[in-house]
C-alpha cells in the first residue's frame, strides 16, 4: 500500500478506528489538513481485483461482512428473553467498510428529519427527539460528500427534497424496466417519482470509469471502481498525502485514557493476534453503530466504570433498525432486472410523518431488484409457490426475468430498551465478549410498514402487475440489520446524549465518535449520506480544535 508508516510508539495526531464510510472521510480530511493519521481496520485491505460476481461467497458466506463464526452475535427481543445466536446485524468488514458492498442509495435527510419531535410531538414508548443540528448545518457537508465521492442523481426531481446548494455532480443512471413501470404507475396515482440518487458513477469521474451495468452492487465489491466507496475515493486521497497509514487486519479492543481523562491511543490485535498499543493525541471511533458502542463498553476504567464516555449511561442504547418490506410484482414481459444497478426510481411522497395517520412514521418506496439467481430461487417466489420439482423449476424460468420489487424504507423509533450490550458468557475468536442485541419493533414501526405495504401493492397494481406478493417482514425477517443507528446519540444535554453537535464525546475532549451511532432519528433508512456529512463536519471541527491546541 502507499501512504505513511508510523510506529506504535509515535503519538500520531489522530487515530481513526474503522476505515468505512465515516472513517475514510475523516482520515482524508485530517491528512489533507496536515495531520498524521493512523487508521485501524479490523478487516482486510482488498481491491477491485479481489472482487467477483460469486453469489455464494458474497451472499451465502460472509465474503465482505462480519462472520458470526468468528464474531458471534446474540439476539433477544427483550431483556426478559434468553438471547440466542443469530446474525442480527451485518457490517462491511474491510477497508472501505459498508461503502464497499452497499447498494449505494444516497439519500440526504429531509429538513423535517432533524426536528421530528417538534413537528410531530412525543411518541409513547420511544424517545423521539430533535437533533441538535439542522439540515442547513449539514447541507455544505452533504454537497462536499457528493462531489468528493461521486454521486449520480437529478437535483430538483424530488419535490420533497430539502434545498441544495449545488446539483449532483453526475447525471442519473439509466432507467431500468422497474423504473419505467414504477414511474408510469406512480404518476398515474398522482405521486412524484424521481431518479434514484446513488453513489455510482454514471459517467467517468476523477479517474474512475463509469458503471458497466453489471448489476452486482448490493452485497458485492465493485470490480469497475464505479461504486463510490471510500476505498476508491477518499482513502486513496488520504494515503497520497503521505501522512496517513491504513493498517488492515487490526481489531481494536480498548481505548486507553490518561489520568487527566484524555484518550491516549488504542490497544489492538494485529493480524497475528499480538497486542499492540498505538499512541495518538486524539481518537476518532468510526466503527459503526454496533462496534463503536461495543468498543466503548469494552474500554472500562476507574474513571469510566460503565464504559468510556458513558457518564450518560446511553452508550449502546436507542439502537434503531433497518426496517422495510419487499413487495414483489410479476409482469407479462421480461424485465431482466438483474441487469443494471439495483434501484433507478423512487418516491418520497410518504416520507414525512403525519399525525393524521394515527401513528408515527413514514418511508420512501423504491423500485428495485436485489436478488441474484440462487437467492431468487430460494427466497424470491411467492410463499404458496412449489419449493421443488418440475413446477418449481418451470416457475423460476418464468418469474426470475419478470419480477420486480417495491421496497419500503421505513422509520425506526429510538427506544431506550433497544440496546447493544456485551454478552456475559459468549466470546469471539479473540476472546472479547460477543455483541448482544436487544431489539423489537415499536408498534408504530410495524404500523408504518403495514400501511406502506398497501401503497406498494397499489403501485404494482397500477403498473399492471399480473400478480403481487408480500415478503415476510417481521423483526427476525428484517435481519440482519445493516443500518446501525442511534447507539451514541448526538445532543446538547450531556445527560441525554453521548456526543455533542460535532460528534465529540461530552466526557472526553479528544475523543470523537462518528458513524450511524450519532443518529437521533433514523430518517427513512439510507443513512450513508448523512453519516458521511457528519464525518466531514466532525473532521473539520477536530482539525480546528487540534490547531487550537485542544
Amino acid at each position: 500500500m502507499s501512504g505513511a508508516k508510523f510506529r506504535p510508539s509515535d503519538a500520531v495526531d489522530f487515530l481513526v478506528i474503522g476505515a468505512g464510510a465515516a472513517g475514510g472521510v475523516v482520515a482524508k480530511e485530517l491528512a489533507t489538513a496536515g495531520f498524521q493519521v493512523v487508521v485501524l481496520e479490523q478487516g482486510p485491505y482488498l481491491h477491485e481485483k479481489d472482487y467477483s460476481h460469486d453469489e455464494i461467497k458474497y451472499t451465502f458466506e460472509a465474503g465482505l461482512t462480519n462472520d458470526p463464526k468468528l464474531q458471534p452475535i446474540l439476539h433477544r427481543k427483550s431483556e426478559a428473553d434468553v438471547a440466542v445466536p443469530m446474525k442480527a446485524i451485518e457490517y462491511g468488514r474491510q477497508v472501505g467498510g459498508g461503502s464497499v458492498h452497499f447498494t449505494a442509495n444516497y439519500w440526504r435527510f429531509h429538513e423535517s428529519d432533524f426536528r421530528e419531535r417538534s413537528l410531530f410531538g412525543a411518541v409513547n414508548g420511544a424517545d423521539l427527539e430533535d437533533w441538535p443540528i439542522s439540515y442547513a448545518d449539514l447541507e455544505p457537508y452533504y454537497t462536499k460528500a457528493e462531489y468528493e465521492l461521486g454521486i449520480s442523481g437529478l437535483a430538483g426531481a424530488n419535490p420533497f427534497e430539502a434545498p441544495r446548494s449545488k446539483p449532483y455532480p453526475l447525471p442519473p443512471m439509466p432507467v431500468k424496466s422497474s423504473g419505467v413501470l414504477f414511474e408510469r404507475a406512480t404518476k398515474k396515482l398522482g405521486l412524484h417519482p424521481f431518479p434514484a440518487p446513488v453513489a455510482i458513477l454514471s459517467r467517468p469521474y476523477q479517474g474512475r470509469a463509469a458503471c458497466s451495468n453489471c448489476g452486482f452492487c448490493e452485497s458485492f465489491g465493485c470490480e469497475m471502481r464505479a461504486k463510490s466507496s471510500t476505498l476508491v475515493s477518499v482513502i486513496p486521497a488520504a494515503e497520497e498525502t503521505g501522512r496517513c497509514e491504513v493498517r488492515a487486519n487490526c481489531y481494536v479492543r480498548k481505548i486507553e485514557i490518561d489520568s487527566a481523562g484524555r484518550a491516549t491511543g488504542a490497544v489492538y490485535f494485529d493480524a497475528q493476534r499480538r497486542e499492540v498499543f498505538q499512541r495518538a493525541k486524539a481518537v476518532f471511533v468510526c466503527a459503526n453503530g454496533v462496534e463503536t458502542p461495543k468498543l466503548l463498553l469494552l474500554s472500562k476504567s476507574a474513571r469510566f466504570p460503565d464504559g468510556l464516555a458513558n457518564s450518560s449511561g446511553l452508550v449502546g442504547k436507542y439502537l434503531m433498525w433497518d426496517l422495510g418490506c419487499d413487495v414483489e410484482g410479476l409482469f407479462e414481459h421480461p424485465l431482466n432486472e438483474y441487469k443494471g444497478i439495483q434501484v433507478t426510481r423512487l418516491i418520497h411522497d410518504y416520507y414525512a410523518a403525519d399525525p393524521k395517520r394515527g401513528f408515527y412514521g413514514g418511508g420512501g418506496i423504491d423500485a428495485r431488484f436485489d436478488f441474484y439467481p440462487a437467492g431468487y430461487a430460494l427466497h424470491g417466489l411467492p410463499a404458496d409457490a412449489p419449493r421443488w420439482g418440475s413446477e418449481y423449476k418451470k416457475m423460476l424460468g418464468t418469474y426470475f426475468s419478470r419480477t420486480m420489487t417495491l421496497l419500503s424504507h421505513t422509520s425506526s423509533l429510538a427506544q431506550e430498551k433497544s440496546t447493544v450490550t456485551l454478552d456475559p458468557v459468549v466470546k469471539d475468536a479473540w476472546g472479547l465478549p460477543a455483541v448482544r442485541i436487544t431489539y423489537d419493533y415499536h408498534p408504530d414501526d410495524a404500523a408504518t410498514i403495514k400501511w406502506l405495504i398497501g401503497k406498494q401493492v397499489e403501485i404494482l397494481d397500477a403498473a399492471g402487475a399480473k400478480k403481487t406478493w408480500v415478503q415476510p417482514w417481521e423483526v427476525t425477517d428484517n435481519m440482519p440489520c445493516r443500518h446501525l443507528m442511534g447507539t451514541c446519540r448526538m445532543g446538547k444535554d450531556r445527560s441525554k446524549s453521548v456526543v455533542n453537535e460535532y460528534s465529540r464525546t461530552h466526557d472526553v475532549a479528544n475523543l470523537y465518535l462518528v458513524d450511524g451511532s450519532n443518529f437521533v432519528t433514523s430518517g427513512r433508512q439510507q443513512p450513508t449520506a448523512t453519516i458521511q456529512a457528519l464525518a466531514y463536519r466532525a473532521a473539520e471541527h477536530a482539525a480546528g480544535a487540534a490547531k487550537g491546541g485542544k
Partner: protein
Amino acid sequence: MSSLAMAAWPEVLAAQEQARERAKADGGEFETLDKDTAGEIAAIAEQIIPSTDGPGAREAGVIYFIDRALGTFARDEREAYRTGMAELQKKREEMFPGSAAIASLDDEQQKALLRSIENTDFFELLRTHTVLGFLGDPRYGGNRGKVGWKQIGFEGWMAYQPPFGYYDAEASGEKKE
C-alpha cells in the same frame, strides 16, 4: 480466519481442483462423499430440480458441487448430512419395505419420500445446496455449462447496455423481448 480464508480463496479453489483431479486419477469421482451416498443425494437433487423442460440438477453436476461444498465452505454441514441421510434411509425402509436405495425407488416413490420430509431443516439444507449447485458460480463445480443460469434467463456478463428489458426498451422506442 475469514480474512485469511478470503485472501486465500483462489488458492483454496485451486487446491480443491487439484484434489479433484487426483481423485479422478485414482479412479474415484468424489472427494468428500462415498460413491453410494453420492448416488443417493444425487437422486434427491434430481427430484428438487428435475431434468424436465431442459437441463436440471443432473446436467448441472449438482452432486459434484455438493461433494466439494462439504469439503470446503459447507464442511460444518457434514454431520447434518450424515444424520439426515441416515434418518431418510430409515424412513425409506418404513415407507417402502424391501427397497434397496433412494436411487432405485421409482419416480413416484421418490417424490412421496421427499414430501414426507419437505418441512424439515435437512430438506431445506438439501434444497439450498441443490439450488446453489444449479445457480451458483460454475467455479464451485456445479452449474456446468451455465445450464442453470440459461434455464432462468440470466446471462451472467460483466457489462450490459440499456435497454435491459421489455419496458425500458418500449419507453425508449426500441423493441426488445
